[in-house]
């Protein structure tokens, strides 16, 4: 078979072949890959996937028929990148592959060819994904509206009605599962306001610009509000930059690089205008994206430089609180706490000691490390919605180990992971004795902030 004339394959060759060729197939990535463990075949391993990208770029296999399936099933946790002895840039490779898949679907639909063989990702799923990516996430206003609607839905009794009737389950079992664990939305009045400036409590040590995020801002703005409070307690003056947008990670991970670039450009401009010392975020996934903005602007030297400067200032909140701490804890909190790493915080931002150190610093609390805390919970952005069963298999395995910690508080550092862990607790029947919270919520509770 030769597909050399197909532009998507040629583009993939240009964007990914060199990266894929760096793999020496040593297999050191195998033990750290969650899908290799759960799916049990080389095709679902990093070494296998890198090889498939290489073969597709060489035109030996078809992008959609052979490469897309195994690449779609990758969680993108990037643990393989840390394990790789030769530094294959797997994240970049994965995004090139996702872009090639998106290009190829577009090309086939424009030329009227059927895009995928039957049995692969359904068109309803593709449609929903595209609609959310194009029409919801890039628009903070629409997302906030969705968040307010969520509150209305939860408060009005519609939620109870919907659950009782099973209507959501009939549309999508995955959405039904997550609907039940969505956090209770706060009143929109408490949301940190764009353009606002909050003074430091006590001596001012730094000025930080706060990245609100799209989902965090819309659905979990309580965590944002508490983040601002903690930063202030740690001595930060906190600015909420106006005109900031979604980080673009979801778009980049699904192959829509153009939208990702637009969002990145807007964020860089919005944060540069603040003159802050650090740009602080509280979502491991978003933070990783912010730190890798320079990759989006390859070939545009001026933007690349601005993106690199932006990345250098972008920090996870745990890093800042740990650096400026200690926090003014108000009470003894006699609980056992365990921590589930956010993959992109750990594997991309290399932040894993700081959250643990902060938890250990809570007076009265005991920290219990969970075996395998560093491996992915299979939230994977929206992986758990797109591949519900595959995701739940990995999650259920993880929850067995979480249970062994005997913790009553399970801390995470990313909204996607948080929802996934809430669902994990529910599925494993631990609901009565364990709850999942964001790191910021745990710290705020110990500082006596409601």
């Amino acid at each position, binding site marked *: 078979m030769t597909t050399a004339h197909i532009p998507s394959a040629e583009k993939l060759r240009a964007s990914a072949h060199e990266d894929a060729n760096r793999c020496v197939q040593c*297999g*050191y990535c195998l*033990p750290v890959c969650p899908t290799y463990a759960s799916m049990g*075949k080389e*095709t679902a*391993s990093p070494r296998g996937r890198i090889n498939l990208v290489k073969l597709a770029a060489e035109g030996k*296999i078809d992008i959609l028929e052979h490469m897309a399936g195994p690449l779609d099933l990758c969680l993108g946790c990037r643990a393989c990148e840390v394990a790789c*002895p030769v530094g294959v840039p797997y994240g970049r490779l994965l995004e090139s592959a996702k872009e090639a898949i998106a290009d190829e679907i577009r090309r086939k639909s424009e030329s009227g060819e059927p895009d995928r063989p039957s049995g692969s990702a359904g068109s309803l799923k593709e449609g929903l994904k595209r609609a959310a990516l194009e029409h919801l996430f890039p628009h903070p206003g629409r997302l906030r509206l969705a968040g307010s609607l969520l509150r209305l839905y939860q408060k009005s009794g519609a939620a109870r009605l919907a659950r009782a009737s099973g209507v959501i389950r009939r549309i999508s079992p995955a959405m039904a599962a997550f609907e039940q664990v969505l956090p209770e939305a706060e009143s929109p009045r408490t949301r940190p306001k764009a353009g606002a400036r909050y003074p430091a409590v006590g001596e001012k040590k730094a000025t930080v610009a706060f990245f609100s995020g799209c989902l965090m801002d819309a659905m979990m703005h309580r965590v944002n509000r508490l983040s601002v409070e903690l930063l202030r307690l740690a001595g930060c003056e906190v600015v909420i930059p106006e005109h900031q947008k979604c980080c673009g990670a979801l778009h980049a991970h699904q192959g829509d690089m153009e939208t990702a670039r637009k969002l990145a450009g807007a964020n860089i401009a919005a944060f540069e205008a603040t003159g802050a010392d650090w740009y602080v975020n509280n979502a491991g996934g978003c933070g990783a994206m912010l730190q890798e903005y320079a990759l989006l602007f390859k070939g545009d030297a001026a933007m690349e430089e601005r993106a690199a400067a932006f990345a250098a200032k972008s920090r996870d909140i745990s890093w800042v609180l740990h650096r400026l701490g200690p926090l003014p804890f108000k009470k003894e909190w006699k609980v056992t706490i365990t921590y589930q790493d956010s993959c992109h915080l750990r594997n991309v931002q290399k932040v894993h000691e700081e959250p643990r150190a902060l938890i250990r610093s809570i007076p009265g609390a005991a920290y219990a490390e969970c075996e395998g805390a560093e491996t992915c919970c299979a939230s994977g952005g929206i992986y758990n919605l797109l591949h519900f069963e595959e995701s739940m298999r990995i999650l259920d395995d993880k929850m067995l180990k979480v249970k062994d910690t005997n913790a009553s508080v399970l801390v995470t550092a990313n909204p996607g992971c948080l929802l996934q862990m809430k669902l994990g607790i529910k599925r494993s029947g631990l609901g009565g004795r364990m709850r999942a919270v964001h790191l910021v919520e745990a710290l705020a509770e110990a500082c006596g902030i409601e």
Partner: protein
Amino acid sequence: MIDQTAFGEIASVIPRERLLIRLEDRYSYSYDASFGEYLPDLVVQPQTAGEISALLKIANQYRIPVYPRGSATSLSGGPLPVEGGMVLDMSRYPRKLVIDRENLLAVASPSVITADIHREAEEAGLFYPPDPSSSHVSTIGGNILENSSGPKGLKYGTTKEYVIGLELVTPQGEIIRTGGKTVKNVTGYDLTRLIVGSEGTLGVVTEIILRLIPKPKARKTMLASFPSVVQSGHAITKILSSGILPAALELMDNACIRAVEAYQPCGLPVEDAALVIIEVDGHPAAVEEEIADCGRICAEMGATTVRTARTEGERQEIWKARKLVSPAITRMGPTKISEDATVPRSRIPEMMERLERIRAKYNINLVVFGHAGDGNLHPNIITDKRNIEEMRRVEDAVGEIFEAAVALGGTLSGEHGIGTLKAPYMELELGKAGLDMMARIKRAWDPNNIMNPGKIFPGPGQTKVKLLP
């Protein structure tokens, strides 16, 4: 291609979800950590010795090549399905690992990751010494069939010294046991030894009985560097002849030292020609005395640096330098050809000189590190497989490395195995009659040549490695 009737029979023994026939799946079993890409017709994930027996009977009847595969970390092409046919993915075989403290044994299924044996044995106060550098990935099945050992061969011997019993499915589909649970066993031919290192050409191993030893109570590690390779060689010889048997004795040449420093600075002496890492283990008092003696000998032999680790952290720091060699030199790649020619220990300085000449003659990037204590060197050629002109030179250089090792009374392979990459040189070491005797054993075991065909034995007229398609 596998014909329809044969496929039908295979499908009647193995459930559909464990038969992988999609192109992307087959391609995912087309490689290992060495060279080349060979597309199998089918990948099977067997779960019992009974299933394997049925599969081999079918394969034997229909002459289907069978390629057992663990984690595919082989550096010699062991699991490559060079003639298509059927890959047996043994990495998914049910995991069983029993540590028998009373008899100092471990009973393992082939899919167990070797590092798990290390860990579970240590938890029981025991020790399984063979430790290939990929032991956190590789399966014990792959390790014993390739007889790969790592740095502890000098004091503790190689993998073959630890395998005392096996369960094996023969190419005819019979399930046999060799050896057993006793350390002493002289009942008939030692088939266990024959299977260990046979690279999957004689059958499929389904259970392994390993001998364990008590865990040493203490260990000490030292790093020493020398202005010349010859001096380091003398130091090594002097240490060994003074009655000390180190647990590990590792050597890195200047190119490796520089590569590691460029990759992740560890404070290594970049001006020195050779670096030696020595580890002794045993009774705490003996260990203290021995490491002091090693330090004194190194200094007498002209070492410029002698550093003994005082804490576990410092020990890890020393080993880190050695462990970084492989990634550090691979970054200079992208293609790394890793050899393991081995010579009698006393010939190491000569072998180093010959390697130096080969590097100059072919103008290639050749670096050397390895297990100096047991003469097992790892000459690595760093190249780019897309550079066809250079690859031709590399092919010639590889041949000359083997000739040098054999001329010095050594062997083609200390631990990676022959596979596809060294098969052309078998006669060089074994002679015509020696190689033919091996071929006769292979024919007696596997008359239809279904087990891992294309390995160990050279093809007709093949006298040189082919790295280019």
